């Protein structure tokens, strides 16, 4: 068994820092909903685990934090090591039994789906009911 550090990041602050970084380097700002969707997809592809970046905050372990930094660097052209260091707050360590546990741990399930989430609204209206016929 080993201790696994957990880092919390406020998503609103991360989006703001990302766009500030891009702006400082002469790049265009990106919408928060787009950053969140893109991060969710890229993170899932890179780590084999989905995290909902539309929540108010996310909690990541060391490996996931590095993955996030790499994604921001490669796909958003933003080298964010210093900003992320300033943004994360460390949570109490959790004990993990194996590498498999780490891989399947799902911090996304603990993402806070209130606050920012309500402000990040998608375009798609998905309904489960039977589609209506035209009038």
């Amino acid at each position, binding site marked *: 068994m080993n201790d696994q550090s957990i880092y919390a990041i406020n998503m609103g602050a991360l989006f703001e820092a990302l766009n500030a970084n891009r702006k400082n380097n002469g790049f265009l700002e990106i919408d928060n909903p787009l950053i969140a*969707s893109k991060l969710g997809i890229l993170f899932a592809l890179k780590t084999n685990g*989905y995290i909902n970046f539309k929540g108010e905050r996310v909690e990541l372990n060391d490996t996931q934090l590095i993955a996030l930094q790499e994604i921001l660097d490669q796909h*958003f052209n933003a080298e964010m090591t210093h900003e992320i260091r300033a943004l994360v707050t460390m949570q109490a360590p959790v004990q993990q039994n194996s590498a498999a546990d780490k891989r399947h741990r799902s911090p996304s399930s603990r993402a806070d789906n209130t606050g920012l989430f309500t402000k990040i609204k998608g375009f798609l209206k998905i309904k489960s009911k039977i589609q209506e016929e035209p009038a």
Partner: protein
Amino acid sequence: MNVHDTHKPPQVITTGGHNLIGGLSRVFHCNHYNAYLQMTVLMTQGMGNHNPERLLAESVTALIQLLKQRGYSEPALLHEFSYCGFGQLQQLDDNTWETPRSHYGEAICTHAKPSKSCYFTSGYLQGVLGKTVCETECKIEGTHTDKFAVLEEPLNVENDFTREFELQTAIPERFAFDGCHKFDTRVDEQTIIANFKTLPLHGNEESGLIEAFGAVLTNHFADYYNRISYETYFALRDAGIPEEDNKEMFIQAGHICAFNTFGRIMNSPEWYEVVAPMCDTKEDWLHGMIAVINFLGWGMYRVEKIDAEKEFIVRVYNSYEGVGYRRIYPMTTDKNISFLAMGAILGLVHSLWKIDIRDKLELTPEFYVEQFNNPENSYIIEQTHAIAAGDEYDRFIVSK
């Protein structure tokens, strides 16, 4: 060898809302859409067997191979590359080609670090030459031209466009179909289309680029978009990406397209000369822009309902996404599947009822982020009917 000036313009046949060149549907799209869509496709880099770089290149290789089977010569294909706005292809020696100017080499980088971006051009050359081609230099990385090496590796690209699906010919006239609400408008769609057809929307003789309405356009292969979009969508879905995030990326591409292309068209001198004089209300502007869309080769758009307080409904007959889907894949049960049309129609409503494009707003990227795409006062969209799911037409409802 520069063959741009040695051939006549290709013949364009317009039928059922499609513009066919060499029998293949072509659609006008801008650099903003192309850049965003390519970025979305490339997000799947490093994903098991899914290879987005090959997808971006080989999807056009297959189409060029089809054109060759239909009798296209190498010079005709090179000429068409320029005519359709992809740039100027020049052969430097037996194994090297370059594009001094190119759509994908100049206007395609979005968000990520600058990297070689001319997958389309590599794939096009592969089809022309029947050999594997890879990009060795790209203007996006700071070089003077894009360069391509012709390799001896065998080329093995399969044709995915094997299913038969005919375009619908019995498309109802505007405002003349069951369920259509009554409209009172002076907007004359046929006059608008006839006027826009006279614009020189083909590659400039010097650059091979189509610069119009303040954007850079391409007269692109509809089924290129279809294949790269749906293959990426399926790959992301199979990787467990939630449907909402997955579709959002593609719908956003259409929304960006609406902002940049529709917005710039509605700000253009051509619009103010031809369309604006027919318009008294916002509703007229929507009818006017729908008329322009019906010139772009995207299918035949028909407005069913405008209720600014409640909802907007648009049908699309022969939507290029629906038709393309049926030509590449088995029928689906998913009705929310015509992503470009969803984003474009939503963006059109946003252009008039979220912002007001009639105020001749400056369409900057900052304005897109801060106003146009701001969640405040946004509408949402739902597709209720889909050609891809066996319906007669695509149908979209935009609501608050």
